[in-house]
């Protein structure tokens, strides 16, 4: 049953402020970017090229495909891991334990600490020449025979490197690179606080009676998490999944601060690639926009798939 136009007015009124702002500063740039992608575009319009930017990206640019693969690896490597860790920690922090407000503060700190400071710490963690924390850990684990790992500067495949270390030839596995894995670790660390805060908000919003009822029924620990918390939190988790997938595909800062030294492109995500087209190359803005539109479409389709596959299982009270 469709609501009448008149009955819809209330809804339109309620969404007006948001739609106005987002329409002007969100939808318009989308169309603008789409428009630019049909042109050779330096800082201003140069000439109409039709589909050329798109066909160049899709059929003639190995860098584009490489950046796409890097982006996909990045999303696969960060989103599920972050969600899982955050779910465990949020559940722990939701319990009545001593000092939980301090824990909450601390777990949120990486998200609010300036990225420059965060990058400096992680640069030290991944410092090469056996001087960083990661190298020290490795030396501690393996004794004197630990290799001199280059971490975030190393564009070789992480699996190939593991194989080399174990004496197997896996050099065909060139992706994902060790550099990219380092970026992922950083990114998980950085965005954990964001996930935890949202999950805590979700947990707090669950009516206490429901959780208490579950406790009376004798559900504890894992069982409680699996059969009570998980379904009750599912709207929040579903939301987080969508949002963090979108964020993973759009990630820029993490890569920029961690891996701008990895010049061979093994950790260059699509947004980083677009950034280079826009600000570090000459006359590639139109092409950058075409890549951005392709990225946009990919995120759109991915979100569609996610809502189809997972959205139905979400449980609303």
């Amino acid at each position, binding site marked *: 049953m469709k609501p009448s136009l008149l009955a819809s007015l209330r809804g339109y009124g309620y969404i007006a402020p948001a739609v106005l702002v987002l329409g002007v500063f969100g939808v318009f740039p989308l169309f603008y970017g789409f428009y630019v992608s049909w042109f050779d575009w330096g800082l201003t319009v140069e000439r109409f090229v039709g589909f050329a930017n798109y066909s160049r990206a899709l059929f003639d640019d190995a860098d584009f495909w490489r950046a796409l693969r890097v982006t996909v690896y990045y999303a696969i490597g960060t989103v599920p891991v972050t969600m899982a860790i955050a779910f465990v920690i949020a559940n722990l922090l939701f319990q009545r334990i001593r000092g939980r407000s301090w824990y909450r503060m601390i777990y949120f700190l990486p998200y609010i600490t300036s990225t420059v400071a965060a990058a400096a710490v992680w640069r030290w963690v991944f410092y090469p020449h056996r001087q960083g924390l990661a190298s020290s850990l490795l030396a501690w684990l393996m004794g004197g025979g630990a290799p001199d790992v280059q971490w975030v500067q190393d564009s070789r495949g992480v699996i190939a490197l593991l194989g080399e270390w174990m004496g197997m030839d896996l050099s065909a596995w060139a992706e994902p690179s060790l550099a990219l894995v380092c970026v992922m670790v950083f990114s998980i660390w950085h965005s954990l606080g964001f996930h935890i805060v949202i999950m805590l908000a979700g947990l707090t919003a669950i009516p206490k009676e429901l959780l208490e009822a579950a406790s009376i029924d004798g559900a504890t620990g894992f069982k409680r998490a699996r059969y009570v918390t998980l379904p009750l939190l599912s709207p929040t988790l579903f939301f987080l999944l969508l949002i963090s997938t979108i964020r993973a595909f759009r990630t820029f800062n993490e890569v920029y601060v961690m891996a701008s030294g990895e010049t061979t492109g093994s950790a260059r995500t699509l947004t980083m690639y677009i950034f280079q087209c826009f600000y*570090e190359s000459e006359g590639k803005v139109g092409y950058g926009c075409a890549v951005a539109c392709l990225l946009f479409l990919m995120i759109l389709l991915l979100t569609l798939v996610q809502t189809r596959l997972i959205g139905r299982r979400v449980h609303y009270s």
Partner: protein
Amino acid sequence: MMTGPRINADERRYFRSVCALILLWMLIAAPSSGAGERIEVAIWHSQSMEKRDAFREIVDAFNDSRGDIFVKEIYIGPYTQLYQKLAPAIRAGRTPALAVAYESMVSSFARAGVVAAFDDYLYDPRIGLSKESREDIFSVFLETNRYPRFGNRMLSFPFTKSILMMYYNLDLLRAAGHDRAPETWDEFTEMCRDVKKLGREGYALSVDPSTVDGMVFSFGGEVISADHKRPLFDQPEALAALKTIETLIGEGLAYRIPHGTYHDREAVVAGRAAFLIRSSTTGPYLARNIRKLGLKTDWDMAVIPHGRGCKRSTVLFGANICMFKTSPEVQRAAWEFVKFFISPEATAKWSMATGYLPVRKSATKLPQMQAFYAKARQNRRALEALQYARREPNVSGWQDVRRALASAEAAVCQGEPAEKVARKLQREAEAILNPPEHKPTDAGFLAGLAIIAAMFVGGGYWLARRGGTAEA
């Protein structure tokens, strides 16, 4: 789904205010205007802290000397930020009179047709520079500001110029049995070996495309053909440069420092490594480190080594100033400031305060400059080496070639064979400098069309049907 009661008074009040706000947003439009009687010349730059103070002094001196022009220096941030702010400003026609920019940035601006060439002012008999004054400017500084793609016009002017230099810890070299800087790359490698025997590192290497360019020059090579069409990384000179890095890394004589850090300075100052290669502006920072750490390290700098039997050569660094098309009066006023900035006194002051090179030969003869050079031998090294400096090409796409170069250097540092890297670099650079023409008749055209259309139809269908999320 809930169907609420009729629209009530609260809601009506709210709706009314929303409409009022929309109206207000549409009406608020107050373009700022602030024209005084003096012509205002805004200059966007990226000099901060002490360097900005020095720049401000020069600007103030200019403003005090002129009643008709007022120069406003505005710090924008590092170069990427500067470019990010300039890009929309150019689109909106809101450029400043002057901005500091690298050659590749200037090329982008020139493509958009917003750059005013300096030739029109420099050679103007009335307001330009005299022939003697023009010849007083180090010619390489002017050359680097000519753009072959834009009629060889001078689209920018030297601002913060420096050159690639080699720095070395003399104490460490002496301990290894050497008392002077290496002349050739073979000597350099040999000295690194001797230093390594002491248990120290030879060369603390920071990956930088300009360093590779400089090395190719020092092997007597070129990086681009005379007609600016063909990169020359397949030539023996380029291979020799990469081979040198390969040997140094392979024998453990050089190590790569993490990107974005300046740990090579610390390593050389503290005697952990013997050499580093960087811009000539690094000198003051080394001196400062030594002072702050309370060390007595004896160090010096020299032009980078060269290949056996080749002439000394190094590469020119640094940013330039670029003038935007604004109005004849403002452009003219901007030129007056540029002229002031490169006057011997001003450029000498700028050089002494920042470590950049003075742009004029006569500036180096001034008593204050002579005193500065006499104070420490390191102070005059860059000037002595300037005669060997060559410019990097500033052709379209060179910025992308530089990225490929950095990538190649990193690959060699990672143990890939130099020959293979050089071949790949040449291929990439060729593709960048001669981009394939993408005609709408491309083989992929129809397939591309189909894919994109499918994606859009699919996306639109989804938007219309599902609205983004599953309804419970």
